[in-house]
């Protein structure tokens, strides 16, 4: 029977010839970084990256309990969570807005606060916006990040789909995808019309979460 043992070990040795998994090249992406004007004396721009630190995950989202917005937010979280292989980003809904990292309201976006940058998605019959305040220095993100989703045509038959697209799109902004995609097939296109992530959306999210961030979240 020692022959059986040797045969088994030999089989293992043959099959154990070196083999390593090969990762894909993730160059299907668009630029996600925030472009910040940082010197009022002249037109000087900085391109900055942000992603939530690993110790902030899952990100705490407070979502206004109105017009199925919470359900839409859960769908958006699930959608984006699936973009990641290693749990780089996740979010959960919280009841207390005071401790939230992100606040999503069913509200027409108010006037932009001084120093904040707005990313707006305009789609009929609803629209959305996310405001990012880069704080006293451009290397901070002041918490909470605020997003707005608003039905502009409340009785439109396409409102539910629109709310789904726009809520997921705004969650994408809150993750750190601070630019719009130039491709209409991406969820992060400026006029989102899909409720799934394209290969470019996934590639961009993955790149953003492994690119060294320039900004850190701060709570005033």
């Amino acid at each position, binding site marked *: *029977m020692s022959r059986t*043992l040797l045969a*088994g070990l030999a089989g*293992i040795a043959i099959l154990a010839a070196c083999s390593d998994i*090969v*990762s894909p090249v993730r160059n299907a992406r668009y630029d996600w970084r925030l472009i910040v004007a940082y010197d009022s004396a002249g037109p000087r721009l900085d391109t900055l990256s942000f992603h939530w630190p690993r*110790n902030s995950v899952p990100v705490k989202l407070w979502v206004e309990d109105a017009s199925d917005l919470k359900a839409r937010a859960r769908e958006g979280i699930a959608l984006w969570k699936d973009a990641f292989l*290693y749990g780089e980003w996740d979010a959960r809904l919280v009841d207390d807005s005071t401790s939230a990292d992100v606040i999503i309201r069913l509200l027409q976006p108010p006037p932009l606060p001084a120093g904040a940058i707005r990313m707006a998605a305009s789609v009929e019959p609803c629209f959305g916006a996310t405001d990012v305040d880069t704080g006293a220095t451009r290397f901070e993100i002041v918490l909470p990040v605020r997003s707005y989703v608003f039905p502009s045509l409340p009785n439109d038959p396409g409102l539910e789909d629109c709310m789904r697209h726009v809520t997921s799109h705004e969650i994408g902004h809150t993750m750190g995808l601070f630019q719009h995609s130039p491709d209409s097939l991406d969820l992060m296109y400026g006029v989102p019309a899909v409720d799934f992530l394209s290969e470019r959306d996934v590639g961009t999210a993955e790149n953003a979460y492994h690119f060294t961030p320039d900004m850190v979240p701060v709570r005033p």
Partner: protein
Amino acid sequence: MRISSCCLLSLALLAPAALPAQVRYSASLGVLGGTPLAHDQLFQEIEVQQDLAPTVTLGVSFPVSKREFLGLEAALGFGGVTTVEPGYPDVEGPSFTTLSLTGSVDGPVIGPLRYRVGAGLLKYLPEEAGIFAEGGPLLLVLTAGTDVRLVTRGSFTLMARIRYDYQRFTTDQLQFSGFSRTQDVHRLGFGLGVDYSRP
């Protein structure tokens, strides 16, 4: 999987009739650890390391000669991974569950020591998200190890087990995400178990 089921059925029906010696049933609990499951490259190297996985194993074996037994083992493992990336803290998760079915031959080496070699199939079951989100394909797993009989009381024997296994790892989600080829994964496990011998 159909082949494995057929083997199990054949063993159950034929082996006891063919040899009236002892049929052994075993149950063991152990931990398995191993080499990294995957490597990725996104601006820097990412390594997916596997954590120690508690594993429950149930087995049955039948004598095929005066010294050797032919056995079948089903094992359920509960593990997790840690993602290691330069410049970032290590991140735990996602978790995974494995189910394996292996056939093996075991026989005496010396004293209370027995060898075991085998092969079987292993599957990573679907999880909520991450690289195990869609589970994995059926992977061939090769095993080798030793069992040490520690104490015998009547029909029961306390066993210490050392197991090595080899697989070529991938998951459906990794393949869907564009990963190609497979990763050599070597695992080593230790466990304690009880054998029950039925005359």
